[in-house]
């Protein structure tokens, strides 16, 4: 039983990393109606920025973390204004291609600037273990779970209870009407991209100590987050987060108890889940169809 709980905690920790990125994907999908393939690479690039702040500028971890989030917000908004908006009226698949181009640019640029060699990225959490009633838990895992939950909570409170959050949601679901109400829609969508970039930066900074920092390290996280978003419903923020924790825990338990699923085969299993969900329940587990009466 104690073992089981340990695996669940480890799974929730990974799930938290996927959840923040999956939430970013859902935000962009709702705001721009497209899947942002560069979302993981934005997180990767920002993690390198944090790395530079910590290891080149010598700033303490949490200050670097905060500065990175500010940069992330501006960066996301800038990407929306400069790269995405010129394609606003183009078909969805063209915009998807644009995000793929962005993926290439960010991936190459990171290797160019910081070299493709593996880099050590510190964890803000101690290497201690905490024992509660015979269950041994990693402080690192608990820290990641805490940060991811805090992010998710802040995002939900922001959208639910603030005027800016309401305006961003309105701009996403009804841009034409929002303009008639005086809402600066383009600005709101940029803010959405900024917020998504912040989430992906958190995801990257939480994943880097676990996975080692290379220009490709977020591609796998992105794939899990895609699976999570599809599992939960690509338009449902709650669903995507729940899907991410489900995948994290599911994979952790699977590799712990099914021996043929080694650590390297976790991703193919997640992919199989994704394809299965598409087959059985295309809207995702928590996706819903909006009630509409005309």
């Amino acid at each position: 039983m104690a073992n089981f709980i340990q695996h669940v905690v480890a799974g929730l920790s990974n799930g938290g990393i996927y959840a923040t990125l999956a939430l970013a994907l859902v935000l962009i999908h709702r705001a721009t109606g497209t899947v942002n393939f560069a979302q993981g690479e934005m997180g990767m690039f920002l993690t390198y920025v944090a790395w530079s702040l910590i290891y080149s500028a010598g700033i303490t971890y949490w200050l670097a973390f905060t500065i990175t989030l500010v940069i992330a917000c501006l960066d996301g908004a800038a990407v929306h204004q400069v790269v995405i908006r010129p394609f606003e009226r183009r078909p969805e698949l063209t915009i998807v291609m644009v995000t793929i181009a962005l993926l290439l640019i960010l991936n190459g640029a990171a290797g160019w600037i910081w070299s493709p060699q593996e880099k050590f990225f510190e964890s803000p959490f101690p290497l201690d273990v905490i024992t509660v009633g015979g269950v041994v838990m990693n402080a690192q895992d608990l820290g990641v779970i805490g940060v991811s939950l805090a992010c998710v909570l802040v995002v939900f409170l922001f959208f639910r209870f603030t005027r800016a959050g309401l305006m961003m949601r309105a701009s996403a679901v009804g841009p034409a009407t929002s303009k008639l109400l005086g809402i600066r829609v383009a600005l709101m969508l940029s803010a959405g991209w900024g917020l998504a970039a912040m989430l992906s930066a958190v995801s990257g900074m939480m994943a880097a100590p676990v996975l080692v920092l290379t220009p490709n390290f977020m591609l796998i996280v992105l794939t899990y987050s895609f699976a999570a978003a599809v599992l939960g419903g690509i338009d449902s923020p709650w669903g995507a987060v729940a899907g991410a924790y489900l995948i994290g825990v599911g994979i952790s338990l699977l590799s712990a108890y099914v021996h043929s699923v080694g650590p390297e085969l976790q991703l193919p299993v997640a992919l199989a889940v994704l394809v299965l969900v598409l087959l059985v329940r295309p809207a995702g587990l928590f996706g819903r169809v909006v009630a509409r009466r005309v």
Partner: protein
Amino acid sequence: MPLLELNGVEASYGPLTALHGVSLAVEEGQAVSILGANGAGKTTALRAVSGTVRRGGEILFDGKRIDHSSPESIARLGIAHVPEGRGIYAELSVQENVLLGGVVRRDRKAVKRDIERALDYFPRIRERLKQQAGTLSGGEQQMLALARALVSGPRLLLLDEPSLGLAPTAVTEFFRVVRTLNQEEGMTVLVVEQNAKIALASTHFTYVLEVGRVALHGPSEELREHEGVRASYLGY
């Protein structure tokens, strides 16, 4: 000086010209209607005012040119456009829809007051605040759209075919509120309608558009007796 003035306004959708030099004026406190057949350019005229179509010519609001302003800026000047099809956020709650009407206003007290006032006009909307807006009936959605517009504290209301797709009783109820707003609060209203009867009965002045031009204009009372209008729009 009229509150809203259009001088030789043209508008087009791509290669398609929808307005060929329309001029009209709406005095402060007046209710004005625009009548016309499908494709006469009624909706386009409203969209030219709110900046949601490419337009040329001169548009003045309160004496200031707005023909180069963005829709967002025009809305912030106090022009509330209730678009054709109502523009309800179906996915959001009724309450959120109402709140969005005043979301960009700085004076939060005034917003609170306006929300109360709007909900007083539409008790049925007040009862349904927690519901998803998409579940409202067509008539309720039209009321919600007007309530939301009122929350923006407008100086000018633009209503685009509010009667479209509504049951006759809902139309009557809607225009009763519009008349009250105009007569008791002095709200300036510019309404586009196909339902000429109710539009002529609810407004002071009327313009009739035909293929993008003003074909006829005059006090609504006079136009009610006008033979051409009777034949084409009133059907008797």
